[in-house]
């Protein structure tokens, strides 16, 4: 009999031991609230050594947006609210009766509309052509990056604005086990540099279920693919450890390596891995290999099929799920359409497992994987998830503050708070209802989309 790799075995045993105890303890203690796990994350943007942050506070006119209903997301809804913005930032949020608007600011009357933060998309391929997605030079390609490809007038970016999306994590495809580094960008800017939020936004890893096509030399099965991912990351970890030792004065300065440098930032928890992973077994592997063994800040970007059975494990490990674009799993054994995000968020008895806790209000978002599903339909992903059991209020968080937290950009965007970026979307009705449309999109304080009823979007 072949023995599993010792670390994996240890992780599996650890998990196996942990689950029954937690399940037994669950009824007594209140469910823990979800926190993204990234303990080494630098305290501020200035403390990042590898990641490059985009500019803030760029010039924009003074505006006062007034709407019948304002959804700050991290605070209670406001009837007849006002949001004041200038120079790319939010200066005030509150009821119209209480907010003082400085002289010279332009009023933007949004009437009966709903004003909320711009939406945040964590898994898309929207800023360039589909043939730029999947360079599979090697089984793992940590030297690749999307930063140089961004085209801000790309069709999918135009659709993003018409769909209320203001921030997008634009990542390579899943054609290889490691597609390269993605970029967090706003969907509008005078230049790609101005639109930049952070590079790297994340490292794209595809655990299984597509990279098989290109692997070749190192095998096309789970073990072979895992080995490729692990070896590349171990190189990066070694480089990071050498750097840490050097910075403590305990060793020589390692020879600079641009590829390993980006992996160093990953181990410093300056940015997460975005993991294309789905199905119980594969997501379990993501948890064990990337989060527990290599201790990476891990974000799951599909999490489909029966992977929701891991909801409690992910809750305890601090691994969030940006679910979609598939929103159901048809269980042949029961004949049921299982709602994926409903099950991830609420937990419960998922088939053969003991009842497990769910990720709750804070651990889930949605993604379109656009252009697989057009970027404009991010809210439809939420709609379909709500249809099958995801609470509506949680879905609003899952379109805004949650993905911002998963990506580590919630100090800039994801809610309407003073000092955050002025990214606003104005909706004709419930933003999750496909019948509602975007009246207005504001990115970094600039009005960059206003609906033309004769042609809202191409």
């Amino acid at each position: 009999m072949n023995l599993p790799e010792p670390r994996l075995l240890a992780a599996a045993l650890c998990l196996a031991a942990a689950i029954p105890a937690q399940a037994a303890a669950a009824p007594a203690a209140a469910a823990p609230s979800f926190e993204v796990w990234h303990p080494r994350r630098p305290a501020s943007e200035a403390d990042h050594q590898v990641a490059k942050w985009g500019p803030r506070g760029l010039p924009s006119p003074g505006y006062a947006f007034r709407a019948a209903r304002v959804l700050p997301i991290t605070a209670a809804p406001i009837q007849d609210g006002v949001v004041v913005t200038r120079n790319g930032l939010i200066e005030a949020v509150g009821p119209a009766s209480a907010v003082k608007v400085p002289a010279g600011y332009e009023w933007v009357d949004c009437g009966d509309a709903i004003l909320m933060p711009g939406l945040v998309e964590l898994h898309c391929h929207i800023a360039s052509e589909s043939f730029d997605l999947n360079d599979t030079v090697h089984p793992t390609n940590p030297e690749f990056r999307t930063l140089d490809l961004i085209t801000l007038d790309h069709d999918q970016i135009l659709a993003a604005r018409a769909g209320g999306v203001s921030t997008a994590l634009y990542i390579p495809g899943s054609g290889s086990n490691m597609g390269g580094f993605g970029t967090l960008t706003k969907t509008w800017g005078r230049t790609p540099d101005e639109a930049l939020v952070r590079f790297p936004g994340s490292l794209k890893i595809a655990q299984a279920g597509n990279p098989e096509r290109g692997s070749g030399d190192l095998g096309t099965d789970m073990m072979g693919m895992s080995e490729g991912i692990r070896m590349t990351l171990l190189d990066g970890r070694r480089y990071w450890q050498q750097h840490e030792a050097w910075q403590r004065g305990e060793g020589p300065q390692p020879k600079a390596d641009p590829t390993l440098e980006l992996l160093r930032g990953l181990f410093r928890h300056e940015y997460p891995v975005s993991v294309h992973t789905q199905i119980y077994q594969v997501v379990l592997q993501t948890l064990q290999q990337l989060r527990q063994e290599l201790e990476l800040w891990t974000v799951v970007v599909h999490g489909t099929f029966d992977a929701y059975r891991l909801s409690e494990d992910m809750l305890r490990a601090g691994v969030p799920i940006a679910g979609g674009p598939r929103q159901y799993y048809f269980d042949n054994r029961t004949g049921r359409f299982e709602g994926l995000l409903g099950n991830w968020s609420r937990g419960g008895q998922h088939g053969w497992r003991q009842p497990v806790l769910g990720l709750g209000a804070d651990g889930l978002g949605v993604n379109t994987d656009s252009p697989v599903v057009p970027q404009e339909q991010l809210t439809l992903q939420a709609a379909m998830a709500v249809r099958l059991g995801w609470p509506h209020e949680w879905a609003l968080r899952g379109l805004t503050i949650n993905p911002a937290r998963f990506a580590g950009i919630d100090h800039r965007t994801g809610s309407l708070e003073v000092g955050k970026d002025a990214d606003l979307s104005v909706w004709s009705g419930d933003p999750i209802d496909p019948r509602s449309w975007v009246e207005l999109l504001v990115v970094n304080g600039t009005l960059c989309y206003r609906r033309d009823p004769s042609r809202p979007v191409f």
Partner: protein
Amino acid sequence: MNATHPTAVVPWLGRTALLAGLVLTLAVDGHAQGRGRRGPRPDGAGDGAPPPAAAKPAEAPAAKPKHHVAIVGGDVHLGTGQRLTGATVLIADDKIEAVGHNLAVPEGATVLDAKGKVVSPGFVCVLGNGMGAGRGTPFADGVNPFDPEIKQGLAAGITAFLAGSTGSSAMPSGSNAVVKLAWGDAKGMVLKEDAVLGLAAELSLGDREKLAETVQKARDYLKALEEFPKQKAADPNAKEPAMPPGTDKVIAVLRGQAMLWVQLGGGGMGMFGGGRRGAARSDDVDAIRQALATARLFGRGVVLQKPVSAWLLPDEIAATGSMVYLSPRDRRPADPQNPDRTGSNLASAAILAKAGVPVAVTCPVGMFGGAGVGTGGILGQDLNTPHVDAAYAVRGGLDGRKALRTITLDAARLLGVDSRIGSLEAGKDADVLILDGDPLHYATFVTIALVNGKVVYDKAAEPLYRHITR
């Protein structure tokens, strides 16, 4: 089974693997659930045996009184754009007998309480596959009334759809049928064989000439046929005119027996847009104008299939009595050289409806999903939620009342079966939904579906969505 699904989720994986997965799924389901041409038919229909005498009430109307079903107290959307609050839908056997307020419910009627619920016509899909339909003419011989996909279609609100192919060559052709989701009733499934004949637009000059000649021959024949009784009266030896070879399909269109659908060319709208990659044109104005010329040639409106540029020509389309089906979510990028006259437009359905053009909607066709239900797609991109496509037409500015017509009455008009289905009106087939909310709200579920007057889906009794409660 699960082993096939991982391949299906992968966005960039080859279609071959996906298809292989689907084929396997079908095969396994078929074995387990009685799918297939030789599936069980407990009513004995279709196996050649004569039905028992008791099953022939039509020939002895006095022998069996009508069975009534009364759907009472619901917010009734008629499908015509009108709405009656707290009304009754009265069904006698397989037909709607009356819709209105204060209707007397006959003694012995089955009463379905719809208070606090919404009642609507069953949804009609202008394109579809699976759901118990056969694969070729005559479809009546190939239906499987116990296909599990029928339940899934009913859960989506679908009670009828066009199965099969619509032609796209230089002469009208096609092999299709309007199929109803009459669970358990093989005889009740095929509403109309060969309902649609398809034709390509942008024909060569030679092909157009040939089409025009054929239409002329057909008209001459129909005229001769019309005059024949008079001739026969004058001359008992007069010979009945013979149908010129190759005109049968054209005659079906001229007589209004089949709808003429025009394929506009340029390929489907790919998931990657395609405008920038040169794979597809950014407008189809010329093809639409040629299709409208065809409409004038036949003297009947045609159906434009997924036009890109129809929003630029609404009045021209309306003037020919033509109709349109589209997916409001299909996007074709504009040509940057001519942005105002090229590309698709989310407002298309609204613009066309305003000009009086009947519009039906269908789902987008991407790598996953498409015009079927099934269990391997991506929710929201297939026929599991037809109301979402109508909802996107509303997003583009279509009036909410008209939007329901895009999946009911106007869809039935495009199929030429609006005298039978598509609205809740006396005399029409009793294909009715009871819904737990606004028909076009994304979270609304079908609670009860009736086809031909029989309850064929009950959310609380089926495993599909029973566990989802709010």
